[in-house]
């Protein structure tokens, strides 16, 4: 592993034993392949990213029967991390998928924001990820809800500095629950994206 990755992420995730355990956990769930890597970035990396996220210029993305949230370009510092060869190797090591490329965007969800499982969606096979910048109270809604085609589901509690990785397909879909008025002015900041895999 190079210095860049060592400087940015929790050194536990650079340990081969940890990667092996994470991979076993990811692959053990046949119906809902997913894993939430907690305390993912180093504290100072997280703090500077949190500051950057709040200063971005967001615009409202609203398709009433599909989603409502605010979106902006991902901070360069996070893009650099995703672009690094070592990071792709880390994700490949955990998921068993050879990462070719990625797409991502910075988002925030506040009161009245949501995503729906629309019939219009045609989800391609992909490995999706959600990186959370702040803690979140699931009483407000706004959590990730993973569902497969056999009516099995898991609710993920958003936690600051956690990276949720989900193998997404037409058989497994992820939605973000409507955020109710109890959230007041609180916002869930996330970087969301997906990795494409080598053929």
């Amino acid at each position, binding site marked *: 592993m190079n210095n860049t990755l060592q400087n940015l992420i929790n050194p536990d995730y650079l340990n081969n034993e940890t990667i092996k355990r994470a991979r076993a956990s990811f692959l053990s769930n046949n119906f809902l392949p997913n894993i939430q890597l907690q305390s993912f970035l180093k504290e100072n990396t997280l703090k500077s990213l949190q500051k950057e996220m709040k200063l971005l210029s967001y615009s409202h993305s609203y*398709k*009433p*029967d599909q989603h409502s949230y605010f979106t902006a370009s991902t901070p360069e510092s996070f893009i650099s991390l995703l672009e690094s060869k070592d990071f792709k190797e880390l994700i490949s090591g955990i998921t068993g998928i050879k990462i070719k490329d990625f797409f991502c965007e910075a988002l925030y969800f506040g009161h*009245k924001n*949501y*995503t*729906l*499982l629309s019939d219009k969606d045609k989800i391609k096979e992909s490995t999706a990820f959600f990186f959370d910048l702040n803690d979140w109270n699931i009483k407000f*809604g706004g959590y990730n*809800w993973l569902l497969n085609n056999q009516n099995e589901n898991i609710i993920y509690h958003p936690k600051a500095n956690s990276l949720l990785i989900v193998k997404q397909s037409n058989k497994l879909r992820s*939605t973000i*629950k*409507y955020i*109710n*008025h*109890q959230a007041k002015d609180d916002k869930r900041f996330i970087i969301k994206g997906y990795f494409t895999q080598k053929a």
Partner: protein
Amino acid sequence: MLKNWINQLHLKNISKLNKEFNTNKPFPYLELELFKKAKIKQLLNEVKKLNFEEKDSDLFYLFQTKDFRSIDNKLIKEFYSLISSREFLDLIEKITGVKGLNATDAASLIFPDTGYLLPHDDRLSTRKIAYILNLSNFKEKDGGQLEFFSTDSNNNPIKVVKSITPKFNNFIIFKVSEKSFHQVNEVLTNKQRITIGGWFNEQYTSKSY
């Protein structure tokens, strides 16, 4: 049975109601006090005695009863008999101009504080006309409005152009089509938004939300 439940005034103005239904925007709809208030007050008392099951999905958070056709309560049976009677369906056909109605779905819904129903068009093969009978009185600050969306040339919903705050005994009907996108705004206070709702169908369907 109609005369026991329906405000007779409306039976004299059907052509006016038909014109209003079909010219309202963003899609054909009508709101009116069709039923006698005293009967609906009695009905509300019976509805409050029913069992409501919590329903939670990406699209909604609410509580719902079983379909009224399977509920053993004298007044609710009477109300269901009314709204599924040939006489009543004929009246709805005359008001809307939509023919071939011959089966009614009915259930009661409660939207509690934070309850909501996100945008959707209600389309399912047999549904022709949707209806909602409001059993609560809300102020604007309480939320819970039934809202209608305008649509673009591809029938995608764009924005809310009509908002109806719940008012006791307000009966709303709208035509189910590829344009009929609507939502129920989140309830913002500790009031309960209670309704009876469902669809007038071409034939019976047990599907609900």
